[in-house]
């Protein structure tokens, strides 16, 4: 079931959590709401769930207005950040809860409940833990119980608030892939909130980048990563090097670089900044093309990519290079190297424009 969010605004006291947000979640897709804390992503998720009412705007579920519908009637499965499991109930009872509280006419029999819960516990690979209390489980297991509990009521939409937020790195990796596989198996419409760009880019079909109560960009993971619509998106989806400068007469003058910038052919000069990711910079010992000299001040060789930090007159520059390239070059700390960006995205002022090299 598709979800449509139309002009939703939510104000808490003097704080505008959401400012006229429009969003369409196509049926069967897994969408990530990505943004820093305070960007309104959790408020949006809670409004979609019906845990919060918007001050303006509407929520449509499969074309029907659901704005006034209570969370009980929305048929959403909600997985809370801290799981919110019922501590005094066993894993089995937690999962069965949604079935047991149904009105008598729609409540399945004991046998059916048992079968359904066991099936769900198998789905989340916890069928051997049914008798445990939530306190006896690890974080990752609790997360999966919360998911099974949400799925028990056969929701049409699954909503997850920071589903991997409080887990350690390794478990988080596993659960992420597992959630992706699960989604491919059961084809629910899903929305999850995260502040971790890697998580959003890896798991979601579509990423919604939010900032200060507004949506900055919506797109497939490779779209938002490769073609960020705004400097905020560029900045938020991984580390960047920023070169400040100006654009005028079809040229971008960014300190030592000058690039063609046909989008601004006017003679009048405007402030601009060039954004380059660390892996989009080439480092060599000889000057070639538009670049700058910088001194190598830091080096981290551990891992598949080597991270270099260089000091340039305008500030530090982060560079990532492949291990092979590093072995060829063997740069020494303190050495002065030539840095040349392969790709620069130029944003006017602090606003949205894009250019390439």
């Amino acid at each position: 079931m598709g979800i449509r969010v139309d002009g939703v605004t939510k104000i808490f006291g003097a704080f505008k959590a959401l400012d006229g947000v429009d969003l369409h979640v196509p049926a069967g897709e897994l969408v990530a709401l990505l943004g820093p804390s305070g960007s309104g992503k959790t408020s949006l998720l809670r409004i979609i769930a019906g845990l919060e009412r918007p001050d303006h705007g509407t929520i449509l579920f499969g074309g029907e207005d659901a704005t006034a519908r209570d969370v009980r009637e929305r048929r959403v499965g909600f997985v809370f950040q801290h799981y919110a499991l019922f501590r005094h109930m066993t894993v089995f009872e937690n999962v069965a809860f949604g079935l047991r509280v149904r009105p008598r006419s729609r409540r399945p029999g004991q046998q059916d409940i048992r079968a359904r819960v066991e099936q769900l516990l198998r789905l989340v690979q916890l069928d051997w833990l049914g008798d445990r209390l939530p306190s006896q489980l690890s974080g990752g297991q609790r997360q999966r119980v919360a998911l099974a509990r949400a799925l028990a009521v056969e929701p049409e939409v699954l909503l997850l608030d920071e589903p991997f937020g409080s887990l350690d790195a390794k478990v988080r990796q596993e659960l992420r892939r597992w959630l992706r596989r699960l989604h491919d198996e059961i084809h629910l419409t899903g929305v999850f909130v995260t502040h971790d760009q890697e998580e959003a880019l890896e798991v979601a079909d579509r990423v919604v980048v939010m900032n200060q109560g507004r949506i900055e960009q919506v797109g497939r993971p490779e779209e938002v990563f490769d073609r960020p619509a705004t400097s905020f998106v560029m900045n938020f989806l991984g580390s960047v090097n920023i070169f400040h400068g100006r654009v005028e007469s079809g040229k971008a003058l960014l300190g030592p670089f000058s690039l063609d910038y046909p989008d601004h052919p006017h003679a009048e000069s405007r402030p601009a900044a060039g954004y380059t990711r660390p892996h989009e910079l080439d480092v060599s010992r000889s000057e070639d093309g538009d670049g700058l000299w910088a001194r190598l001040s830091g080096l981290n060789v551990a891992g598949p990519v080597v991270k270099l930090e260089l000091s340039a007159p305008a500030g530090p520059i982060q560079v990532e290079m492949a291990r092979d390239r590093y072995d060829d070059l063997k740069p020494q700390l303190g050495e002065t190297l030539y840095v040349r960006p392969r790709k620069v995205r130029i944003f006017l002022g602090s606003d949205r424009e894009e250019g390439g090299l």
Partner: protein
Amino acid sequence: MKRVFTSHNVLPGFGLSMGFTMLYLSLIVLIPLAALIFRAMTHGFGAMWATVTEPRVIASFRLSFGASFLAACVNGVFGLTVAWALVRYRFPGRRLIDALVDLPFALPTAVAGIALTSVYAPNGWLGRPLEAIGMPVAFRPLGVIVALTFIGLPFVVRTLQPVIEDLDQEVEEAAASLGANRGQTFVRVILPSLLPAWLTGFTLSFARAIGEYGSVVFISGNLPLRTEIAPLLIMTKLEQYDYAGATAISVVMLLASFALLWIINALQWWSGRRAAARR
């Protein structure tokens, strides 16, 4: 020797604090209680038994324990309501009401007794209309229950308040998102979390009511066999220089108090274990 009782601790002073605790408890609690039991023993078990099985004494025990139990039940219900309202809702005068809950703690019990009597007496503000509908309060067992309810309320409210504050609202939202209505959420999710603290509050209020004297003696009228509570009977016996009788009743009260304290501790241990298991 220390190693046996304590794991390594950054703060020193186990020996000193343990010694002080034992000495202090002995002086204040254990020695007087031992003296009481020793005193009762000197009168012989037969005489003791004869005293505590007198109809008047039995009736006073029945009233003391029965009225205390009913008062604790009333407090259990309304204390939960008050605690819930104070924690969950923001209304004008909330702080004032929150402070008023402690009044039965702070007020000298005799003052409470006089106040309650003047209100519930047949010519008082509440006593007159209640008398008119055929439900007199003062100088009846009902009056005893009213007084014991008054002094027991803070125990239930104050034990429940922090627990209600600690309740995770997300859990209630989770129940709602799973389709539970308010009643189901309360009965299946909230009550089980409150139960240990609720039982503790109930038991504390019960224990306090059993020992209560000052606020009851005015409103009860102290009619033998009808509205005479056990602590009053102890006083009466003492005034008649019947030390053996007073001691015998005291020992029974002491044993009952011990039993109640044991239950409180068992409940606290149980809720503590559940709280520890949550982590």
